[in-house]
């Protein structure tokens, strides 16, 4: 019997190691696997490369991981927000590397990794700083730049419902990067608000099929903070 549901955070994050690349779902406070991130801090791993849209707000979650000095580099589209003070302090002090990626390019680089595509040409960023050092080609009359797939060792994902095969649904704008990241890591780990019996999810409504998921942990976290 396949059962991807694990009972402890230690089991969920087994195999975490220094220097690995971690994909973190979420956009703003919605859809963030914040309990898995707290558990990642507990594992003590360091020198991490984190891929996330935002550079963490407030104190908990990703901000906490950065504050604990565990993140060597962050790859994101929008590090600035009203309360991203921990990131900004580290960045100004030169204690964290930053790679800025246009949001759609970031999503597509991750999707490409999940789909086995090594790189792709996109018009986004042509003629800007983002194009520096990248291969340029005219395709169907349009100038495009080459962007490479972006893969993770771990993907940490928040879902609304999960079953023991790892089939997932999401809640409203909590979907965001989660399904794309779930496809693009060696090990995809899910914190799910609800666990349902196998067969309890309408196959027409499953957003992430279990083939992309390795471990699920039940975290009835509740609503994201306002």
């Amino acid at each position, binding site marked *: 019997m396949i059962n991807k549901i694990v009972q402890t955070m230690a089991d969920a994050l087994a195999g975490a190691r220094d220097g690995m690349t971690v994909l973190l779902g979420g956009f703003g406070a*919605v859809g963030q696997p914040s309990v898995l991130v707290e558990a990642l801090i507990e594992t003590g791993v360091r020198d991490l490369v984190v891929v996330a849209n935002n550079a963490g707000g407030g104190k908990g979650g990703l901000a906490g991981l950065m504050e604990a000095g565990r993140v060597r580099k962050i790859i994101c*589209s*929008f590090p600035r927000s009203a309360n991203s003070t921990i990131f900004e302090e580290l960045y100004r002090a030169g204690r964290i590397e930053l790679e*800025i990626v246009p949001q759609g390019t970031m999503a597509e680089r*991750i999707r490409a990794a999940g789909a086995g595509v090594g790189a792709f040409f996109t*018009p986004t960023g*042509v003629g800007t*700083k983002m194009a520096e050092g990248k291969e340029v080609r005219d395709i169907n009359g349009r100038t495009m730049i080459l962007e490479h797939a972006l893969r993770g060792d771990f993907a940490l994902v928040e879902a609304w419902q999960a079953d023991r095969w790892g089939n997932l649904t999401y809640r409203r704008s909590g979907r965001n*990067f989660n399904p794309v990241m779930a496809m693009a890591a060696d090990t995809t780990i899910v914190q799910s608000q609800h666990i349902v019996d196998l067969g309890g999810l309408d196959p027409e409504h499953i957003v992430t099929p279990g083939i992309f998921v390795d471990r699920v942990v039940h975290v009835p976290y509740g609503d994201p903070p306002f």
Partner: protein
Amino acid sequence: MSATTEAKPWDRLKMAERVARDIPEGWYVNLGIGMPTTVADYVPLDREVIFHSENGVLGIGPRPPEAERDPWLINAGKQHVTLRPGGSFVHHADSFAMIRGGHLDLCVLGAFEVAENGDIANWATSENDTAPAVGGAMDLAAGAKRLWVIMDHTTKDGRPKLVHRCGYPLTAVGAVKRVYTNLGVFDVTERGFTVIDMAPGVDAAMLKARTAAELHFQA
């Protein structure tokens, strides 16, 4: 009656209203963070315009009263929003497929500068020492069928924002089709900026004095 009337620049709400007037029913539209977002307030619900947000929301409705906010439903500016009947959710790669794939009829962004060749600079300024944040602006500028900009005509200290060539780091080259400022509306054409509307009391001399690019006036 004096020949020179007092100029009455549009305020931010009037600017948003002016943009909204030009959006026809049936368009799929992405509104950038800040002033562009307010444009939606001036599109009546019975004119069916479908608003998109980068974080995977298609069919955004009016802003909810505080008591009815849904913590799971935000827009790209992290503000709480509603979903209209017929709305849908997608993941980020599909959301940007809508953008990059040319499926959006219009994107409205703010900007630091717009050049007469349609270049836009809206994500970083050279004097800014904080971390740059591009978000989805480059994808939107490169991908939407039309890019309009809504911004003040000059900076707070009076420097023109409509320019010959951008000085700040570019967001996209040759992308802007139209600019709405507090003083007027400007199409970006092969010749450069063409004035298609002016705020009440604004005249050609005033526009020229506040613009660092050539202006063309319709006959």
